[in-house]
């Protein structure tokens, strides 16, 4: 699992460096506490994983962070839907980039985006690893819940 987590950490670092031109601090991944959902922020996207793996990749961020990141990338259109579209794109890119290390059998779905803090039904039988990301004093989280078949 360590190698797989490293892949997602590298993907997140590369994403912020490329799009924002400013590095993000990626924290130590930790196993999700079954009782706590402190990784839930107001915009999120879930990518379903299939093929030689199963599970999902989940990315959660605050609307403020997404709007700040969009502005830095040159996007100044403030439509609410665009932040949701953007969170889906971040999840899609980080999950898709993991294919390089996890192989062509790591298949990703189109993102399902979620607005507002709500409980997410993630697969219970797979451990969930949370990767905290801090960018410009904003927190966001990648949740990795995958297992190989």
């Amino acid at each position, binding site marked *: 699992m360590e190698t797989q987590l490293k892949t997602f950490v590298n993907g997140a670092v*590369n994403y912020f460096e490329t799009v924002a031109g400013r590095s993000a601090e990626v924290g130590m991944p930790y196993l999700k506490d079954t009782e706590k959902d402190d990784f839930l922020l107001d915009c999120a996207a879930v990518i379903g994983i299939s093929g030689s793996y199963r599970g999902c990749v989940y990315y959660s961020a605050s609307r403020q962070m997404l709007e700040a990141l969009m502005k830095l990338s040159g996007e100044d259109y403030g439509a609410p839907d665009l932040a949701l*579209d*953007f969170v889906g794109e971040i999840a899609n890119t980080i999950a898709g980039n993991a294919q390089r290390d996890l192989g062509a059998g790591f298949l990703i779905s189109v993102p399902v985006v979620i607005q507002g803090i709500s409980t997410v039904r993630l697969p219970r039988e797979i451990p969930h690893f949370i990767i905290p990301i801090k960018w410009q004093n904003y927190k966001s989280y990648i949740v990795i819940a995958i297992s190989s078949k």
Partner: protein
Amino acid sequence: MKLLIVDDSNFIRRAIERHAESFQIKEIRTANTGKAALRTLNEFAPDLITMDITMPEMDGLTCVEAIRRVNTTSRILVISALSDRSMAVEALKRGANGFLLKPFNEESLREAVVDVLED
């Protein structure tokens, strides 16, 4: 220069459009699915098409193949987050002229566009 941007993400369509305007590409159309792209091509002949892979209804690789049955002149740049090498090879096999890995910025997009147009 005419450009057709095919991507299901509004954020990405807008980002490519913004960068393309800075490359002096003036006539730009967008499509949010592969099927919408095929419909657009009935009335618009782009010099360049940027194509996402993971899209609902029709994926980008199937769309590239469908475009090549009727259009051999437009240059096609596939832009995707799917990073396994086989994905780029498959895109080229289906008729694309280049492959750009997401995430991209203005500089990497410009280089990829120049490569595809000059190739």
